């Protein structure tokens, strides 16, 4: 061949190289452009507004409700996109609540984040009066409270929200269930509403307390489906208003400049949806996002990097909503009818090892269904030990022995072999399955791990068509275990799908429901907790704290006992990133 073709190829590659170089350069250029732009905006705004004084001293700070400088945005990365922003919908999740509740739509009362029990602080309501017999609750609203469009919040709005929720055509059956006990809401005057209950039930009182108030004038509907379809554009009385929802990308809230109470400092909250964990961490590290909930592994490893811990705060707290992991033994199966077998299974489950491996030692073993740092939980109950020998002994006692010499225990001709179902793709569940399989094999029980896709998994659980499931319950600070463990919930699609049936437990739960005195109620729940511990309808595995990485430019980030309050945060003027 000749030189011409050689030149041609050379030029071609040169062209390619140049293209790539140009691409890189343009990127660097755009980076610089942003910097300059930001700098420009900053100088302009700093000229307009007088620079804030240097750090105010601490006593002055605590005197104010929300101390610190105004401005800046908070970019919070929620890993998945929410399905709805309508709180009165089956699809509303914890993330929906993070976005909407307290920020856009406010409740009557809010939970005190520093308490160890359910303690309500007035928000829209001024006070709550409970009648002697506990069957009537009167709520009085505060004066001078307004929705973001300037319309005052009145008793009519409470009545509207209540009636909407109780409307059987509104797609919020799960929530309605909690208000089942209320026969009606009566408007006494513009500021007062009376709720009437069928029977005494402590949970109803707390549900009324955390009741959200929707503005009637914007949510009114003729066809309930109008309300069901309204998944976006929430309007309420909160310190933030909805700005936009870029589907698949972000939801933006802007501060409500007409807020009736003290305004928080942060001007915008952006919720991003980055589902890829690697990308989420990288987005945080390159300051595209400010806040992100890492896994146990990341929270153990990342703060070791000095650069990282210089730029980001790591926050750890025991969030009741986190709930706990458990293994549910289907008592309709021959193996798990006997309490001793269930105890044996618990003794075979090395929960401490799970805490070590799956949460890097940050979690804790649980012994029952209650929030471990709450008052319902009895802290004196010690978890069953990890003790395969004891397990073998219990199995022998229950009559499960290896009679045919195949290495697997059996009874009445049924070999002790079961399917362990968990949600496919859940890595920690898979690891737990492996741990249990190994331990069970040592005492002659065969565990067959059975990863199942979520939609099928749910179907099987509801149809009670499973041997063993590994799952997790979300929690609240004080919960009513009736839905999960009362024998009336075995039928149909109730949540007692392991078919736990214990008369004494039933009675305790029924009595506790009617008990309005906290201390007496806690005592009843402690007794119930003890029964759960002896009966082991579940093998209660573990829980872990919630973690967040938060950009260090945010100040006054207080970690309360039960959580964090974004409204307390601020960014000092000189560190603000967004205008």
């Amino acid at each position, binding site marked *: 061949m000749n030189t011409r073709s050689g030149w041609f190829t050379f030029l071609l590659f040169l062209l390619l190289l140049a293209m790539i170089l140009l691409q890189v350069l343009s990127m660097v250029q755009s980076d610089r452009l942003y910097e300059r732009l930001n700098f420009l905006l900053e100088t302009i705004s700093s000229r307009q507004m007088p620079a804030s004084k240097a750090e105010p001293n601490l006593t002055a700070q605590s005197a104010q409700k929300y101390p610190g400088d105004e401005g800046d945005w908070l970019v919070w990365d929620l890993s998945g996109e929410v399905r709805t922003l309508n709180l009165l919908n089956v699809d509303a999740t914890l993330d929906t609540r993070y976005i909407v509740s307290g920020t856009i739509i406010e409740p009557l009362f809010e939970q005190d984040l520093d308490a160890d029990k359910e303690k309500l602080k007035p928000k829209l309501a001024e006070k709550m009066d409970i009648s002697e017999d506990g069957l009537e609750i009167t709520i009085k609203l505060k004066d001078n409270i307004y929705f973001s469009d300037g319309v005052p919040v009145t008793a009519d709005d409470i009545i509207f929200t209540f009636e909407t929720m109780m409307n059987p055509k509104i797609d919020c059956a799960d929530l309605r269930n909690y208000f089942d006990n209320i026969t009606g809401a009566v408007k006494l005057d513009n500021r007062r509403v009376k709720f009437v209950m069928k029977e005494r039930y402590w949970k109803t009182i707390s549900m009324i307390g955390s009741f959200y108030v929707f503005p009637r004038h914007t949510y009114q509907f003729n066809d309930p489906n109008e309300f069901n379809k309204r998944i976006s554009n929430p309007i309420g009385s909160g310190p933030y208003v909805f700005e936009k929802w870029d589907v698949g990308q972000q939801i933006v809230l802007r501060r409500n400049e007409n807020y009736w109470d003290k305004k928080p400092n942060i001007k915008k909250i952006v919720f991003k949806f980055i589902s890829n964990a690697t990308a989420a961490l990288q*987005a945080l590290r390159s300051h595209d996002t400010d806040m992100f909930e890492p896994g146990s592994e990341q929270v153990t490893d990342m703060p070791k990097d000095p650069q990282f811990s210089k730029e980001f705060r790591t926050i750890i707290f025991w969030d009741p909503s986190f709930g706990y992991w458990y293994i549910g033994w289907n008592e309709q199966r021959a193996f798990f009818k006997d309490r001793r077998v269930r105890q044996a299974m618990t003794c075979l489950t090395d929960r401490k090892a799970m805490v070590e491996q799956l949460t890097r030692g940050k979690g804790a073993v649980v012994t029952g269904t209650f929030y471990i740092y709450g008052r319902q939980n009895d802290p004196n109950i010690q978890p069953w030990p990890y003790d395969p020998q004891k397990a073998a002994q219990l199995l022998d006692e229950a009559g499960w022995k290896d009679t045919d010499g195949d290495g697997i225990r059996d009874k009445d001709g049924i070999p002790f072999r079961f399917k362990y179902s968990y949600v496919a793709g859940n890595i920690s569940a898979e690891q737990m399955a492996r741990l249990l399989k190994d331990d069970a094999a040592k005492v002659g029980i065969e565990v067959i791990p059975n990863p199942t896709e979520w939609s099928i998994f749910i179907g099987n659980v509801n149809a009670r068509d499973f041997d063993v499931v590994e799952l997790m319950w979300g929690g609240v600070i004080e919960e009513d275990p009736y839905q999960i463990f009362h024998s009336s919930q075995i039928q149909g699609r109730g949540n007692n799908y392991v078919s736990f049936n214990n008369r004494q437990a039933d009675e305790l739960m029924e009595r506790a429901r009617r008990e309005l005195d906290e201390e007496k109620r806690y005592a009843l729940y402690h007794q119930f907790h003890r029964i759960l511990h002896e009966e082991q309808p579940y093998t209660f595995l573990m829980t872990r704290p919630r973690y967040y990485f938060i950009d260090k430019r945010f100040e006054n980030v207080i970690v309360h006992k039960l959580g964090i309050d974004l409204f307390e945060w601020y960014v000092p003027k000189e560190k603000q990133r967004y205008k």
Partner: protein
Amino acid sequence: MTTYIIRRILLMIPTILGITIMVFAISRVAPGDPVSLSMGPGGQLDAQRAADVRKARMALYGLDKPIHVQYAIWLKRVVQLDFGDSIKHHRPVIDLIAERLPVTITLNVISIIIIYIISIPLGIFSAVRQGRFSDKVSSVILFMLWSLPSMWAGQMLIGYFCGPTFKNWFPPAGLSSNFADALPFFPWLGDRLWHLTLPVICLSYSGFAYLTKQVRAGMLDNLRCDYIRTARAKGLDNWTVIFRHAFRNSLLPIITIMGTLLPAMIGGSVIIESIFSIPGMGRLAFEAITTRDYNVVMAVATTAGFLDLIGLLLADIAYAIADPRISFERIE
């Protein structure tokens, strides 16, 4: 030609019908349904109430009827270009697709252009230097790229080029920066392209090998032909021989590939869009399948099937235009 095109378009109707019947049947036969999914065990309900709610919701979405009736209803609506509402998003499916299709198309068109820009010269180059060291090196590299799974490559690119761990050059997720709204058009466009760079790289690198090999094979076939020898014998220089004679004639297979590349890439963008958190058709389809959002699954399948068929038709027409030897008219 016109009669041929009309005939092809008419033939598309039964094909599309077939596709929809298949997808409809598969999606309904698959276990699980959108109603029980969103009612999971977290929604604490008593048994009777739960059954009622379930029934009401099934009726609301028309899922209580037999499958063939559901299909007939669906078909009737689709003929009027109404794909129904998404069960998950409570919004018309057509809106969801209208929001996301442009993103996916942008991503894929840019990728295809890049694939062609890189592969054609590379194919010509390796054909001309057939058997030499540079040809071998380029084939080895291309095959290596071809066999790299894009989800792995995507994770690696995010890990190394999107944060302070190695180089902080690109954004790890999304389509635009937080402050993009405040930007004028050109910086905004730059921001958008900056976000698209890595996804486009991931979508395109594996295409290089395939197309380059096709170009190379086509070129080699032609370079061996008599007319090339004639051209050389005429004393034409190498450049003219390669580009005016050999290259033009080896364009044909490349055009055919164009027709199949687009559908393949829409499939590939399911993964890329999930990795880079890009709100496109791929991610929509993936989420719809996992949540059994039937209307969305059907609409995405129909749209993708339609795009495929159009792509193939366009390829055939381009064939006729590029090569006068090919004609769709019946020979009298």
